């Protein structure tokens, strides 16, 4: 978390309400009971609560990121109580995020991304990926999301039921990842009508855009590496989308010692 590219100092002071979400993989996460199933973003799981809370207390007491004093955060986020989950490895149809990052299944890995609280995409209607992923993509493109106005990380935690719908239709994790990167976005015409749109912000993207063309499509994900796609949560028709920050934080990952 202290790596330069993660920009912890910037997040400590930001007006935005993001927190470092730890996605913990590997056998040690299972051993100590980090939950990635039912209720993984909520209370009741000691490891999730304790680890995340310890990190936050360090950020407050050692890092000085106290709201209104060292931190200009407007709302903060409930993720600042704790933000530590595992993937639902028991019910996922795919490889984990850590494996997609090049680690072995037996490696104990943490991936950390600066994100907001999850926005839930409930869909108990779609039985095939096209419609399902359209709905997930819709949750990725809010006018007020920094993902539409900057290069920003995002975590999409597909519930295992939604992931299985995609897998049964022959889609791999990589297929779903690519599809979401491609379809999640808005046209300039829509973005101008509200939220954080500024022409000069669009010109600052690391991709070529034409902010003067109302039909130009602006993707939420500017670089595929910024979309952290995992399978988490209990069995049910829901996917969680966590929007990112604007201030130049890149997700980090690495093996941790036990």
């Amino acid at each position, binding site marked *: 978390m202290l790596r330069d590219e993660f920009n912890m*100092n*910037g997040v400590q002071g930001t007006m935005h309400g993001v927190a470092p979400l730890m996605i913990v993989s590997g056998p040690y996460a299972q051993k100590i009971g980090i939950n990635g199933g039912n209720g993984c973003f909520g209370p009741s799981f000691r490891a999730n609560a304790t680890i995340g809370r310890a990190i936050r207390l*360090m950020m407050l007491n*050692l890092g000085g990121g106290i709201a209104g004093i060292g931190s200009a955060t407007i709302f903060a986020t409930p993720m600042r109580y704790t933000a530590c989950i595992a993937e639902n490895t028991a019910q996922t149809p795919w490889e984990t995020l850590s494996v997609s990052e090049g680690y072995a299944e037996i490696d104990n890995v943490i991936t950390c991304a600066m994100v907001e609280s999850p926005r839930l995409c409930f869909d108990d209607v779609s039985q095939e990926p096209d419609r399902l992923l359209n709905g997930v993509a819709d949750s990725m493109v809010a006018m007020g999301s920094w993902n539409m106005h900057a290069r920003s990380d995002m975590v999409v935690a597909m519930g295992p039921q939604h992931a299985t719908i995609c897998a049964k239709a022959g889609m791999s994790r990589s297929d779903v990842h690519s599809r979401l990167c491609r379809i999640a976005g808005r046209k300039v015409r829509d973005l101008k009508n509200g939220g954080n749109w*500024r022409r000069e*912000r669009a010109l600052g993207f690391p991709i070529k855009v034409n902010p003067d063309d109302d039909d130009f499509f602006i993707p939420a994900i500017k670089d595929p590496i910024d979309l952290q796609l995992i399978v988490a949560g209990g069995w049910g028709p829901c996917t969680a989308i966590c929007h990112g920050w604007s201030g*130049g934080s890149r997700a980090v990952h690495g093996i941790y010692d036990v």
Partner: protein
Amino acid sequence: MANDLGFIDPTAGGGKSKVALAPRPMDLAGKVVGLLDNTKEQGTLILETIGKALQEHYGVARVVLRSKEHYSKPATAALIDEMAQEVQVAIAAVGG
């Protein structure tokens, strides 16, 4: 029950050092004023306007405008040193 818990202070007694503020001049006439743009939109415009007003109304001799690399990151030590060599007073743009 709670009284026999040993508490460890994670700050280890640190965090007590204080940074002395630089002395504030009472008069800006003839001074060189530094303007540090944090790169948020329109920060340059605001600072340029302030700089012009300081020259016109307070006799500031010269303004030096510099930009950080990114609003969310601190100014580099090299940039701060460079400005400290050249200016007597500095104003930093904050916010968005």
